[in-house]
């Protein structure tokens, strides 16, 4: 009887502590997501209400006008143009990055060629190089090639693989038993066949991770657009938002509405590929 009482009080105490845990965690989650919730709520409030009722997350005078007004964009280009531009840049970048990184990762992970370690070490070093050192000469290079004012500087470098992405795919390839490629080689398959027929179909998960991460990075890229895009018809969403905000200072609602729309693709990718993203980020730490 006494023992039963004790176990009961222990499990009750555990339940209380678990409830406190969840209350605190839910509160913290709300705090973390609050800015985004506020953005969405404000985008549905009339301009006069946004700051007057800032602490309320529920719009009292619900309106869609900001979405309609904002979509018109500026200098006779609607946000449809900007979304299309962003989509083109981000899709091409992520396709180029996934495929080129897969090819390079296979070479570095599986083929025992002279100089392999040298290139591997260089890859690790370049991961740590600050991008701003290369920023100006790259701009000069693209300027000389006549690429300034086009999407090319924001897309083409992705076709030449990237350090962290190569590393992420290599980690995955290393987990695939070597017996498979050796058996295929004995059967007369070339390295190209091993890559195309055996490895490539097996590394879809890390390729998706690389593709999604590159897409998001490219979608949000502000610096590239700032440096290379010079006419409104070419603006990506990230850059257009900044210019739109500059041109319509007082129309907060429209900026919020377009900001909220600009985050939807990122959020959608997150919900569909959450597992890939979490694993990709976690692997990042394993390289240390």
């Amino acid at each position, binding site marked *: 009887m006494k023992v039963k009482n004790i176990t009961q009080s222990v499990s009750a105490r555990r339940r209380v502590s678990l409830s406190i845990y969840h209350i605190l*965690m*839910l509160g913290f*989650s709300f705090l*973390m*997501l609050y*800015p*985004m919730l*506020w*953005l969405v709520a404000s985008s549905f409030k009339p301009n006069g209400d946004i*700051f007057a009722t*800032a*602490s309320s997350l529920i719009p009292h005078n619900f309106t869609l006008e900001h979405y309609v007004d904002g979509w018109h964009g500026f200098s006779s280009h609607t946000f449809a143009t900007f979304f299309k531009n962003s989509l083109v840049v981000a899709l091409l970048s992520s396709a180029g990055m996934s495929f*080129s990184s897969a*090819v*390079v990762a*296979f*070479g*570095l992970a599986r*083929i*025992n*060629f002279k100089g392999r370690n040298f290139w591997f070490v260089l890859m690790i070093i*370049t991961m*740590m*190089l*600050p*991008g*701003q*050192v*290369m*920023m*100006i*000469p*790259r*701009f*000069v*290079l693209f300027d000389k090639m006549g690429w300034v004012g086009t999407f090319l500087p924001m897309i083409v*470098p992705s*076709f*030449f693989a990237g350090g962290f992405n190569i590393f992420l795919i290599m980690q995955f390839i290393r987990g695939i038993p070597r017996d498979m490629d050796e058996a295929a080689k004995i059967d007369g398959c070339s*390295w*190209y066949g091993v890559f195309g027929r055996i490895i490539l179909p097996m590394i879809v998960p890390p390729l998706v991770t690389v593709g999604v991460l590159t897409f*998001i990075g490219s979608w*949000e890229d*502000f*610096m590239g657009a700032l*440096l290379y895009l010079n006419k409104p018809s070419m603006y990506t969403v990230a850059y257009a*938002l900044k210019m739109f*905000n500059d041109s319509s200072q007082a129309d*907060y609602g429209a*900026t919020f509405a377009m*900001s909220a729309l600009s*985050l939807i693709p*990122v959020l959608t990718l*997150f919900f569909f590929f959450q597992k890939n993203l*979490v694993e990709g*980020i*976690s*692997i990042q730490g394993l*390289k*240390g």
Partner: protein
Amino acid sequence: MKKKTGLRQKCFSLLDRDNVAGYVFTFPFIIGLIVFTAIPFFTSLYLSFTEYNVLSPAKWIGIQNYKEMFFEDKLFWTSFKVTFKFAFIQVPIKLTVSLLVALVLARATRLTSFYRAAFYIPSLMGGSVAIALLWKQLFSRNGVINQILGIFGLPSDTSWLGNPKTALGTLIALGVWQFGSSMLIFLASIKNIPASYHEAAIVDGAGPVRRFFSITLPMLTPIIFFNLINQVIGAFQAFNSSYLITQGKPLNSTLYYGVHLYNKAFNQFRMGYGCAMAWFMLLIIAFFTALIFRSSSAWVYYESEGK
């Protein structure tokens, strides 16, 4: 006919040799490394000794840019100090928060994946223009932060972004809010710690605090080390939050090094000067990375060493 296939065969077997195939596969990386990294890297060093505005050819001026940087350009030192302050306040806070949250999140419950998503999402979108513009409004004088402070009876008319004392802090808060990705890295490595270590310690009578300091923390030092280097490199290169939210104002209290560099290179078209600044930053980052590496033997624990 037979000869032709023989030649093709030969070609193919040559292409399939390890030393050839290896380079065929790594070709994109090597070309990219040369064209987009190595050549710009060294060109940047060369340009740092020139006056160059893109339109007319670069003119060699020796160490003039560096002299100007160190002795004449007051904003250079301002931006240098701002960036140091930014990095040395933001990085420790961000690492501590991400470690603590990861520890709390290691307890598996039914809602864990929701919490993880909620904490990670800000770091996924925090660098975007949308969030930067939003941050500006959250912290404006009549913004929601002040209104909430007002509800609790606290001073509610702080001009967060207009006051040189609070502006940088507001940008640091934006950075800390994005602790999600380093939290995920911590979380993955906390889960990698063998449960048997904790079980053995419990048998020996160690409490949770003792276990944290004797097991969890030492086992995490390699990851702390990795996150620390990553965050320091990232913080020194910060650009977006200052450029989009404060433009370096008020009184240059948020003028990041990266923003000053950008202004010099792309507003005043002083590419040579910009390159000199970039190289100086590279040296500073290299110095701190080396410092962290050198000190690591004293505090980073690698299991394979079997200390």
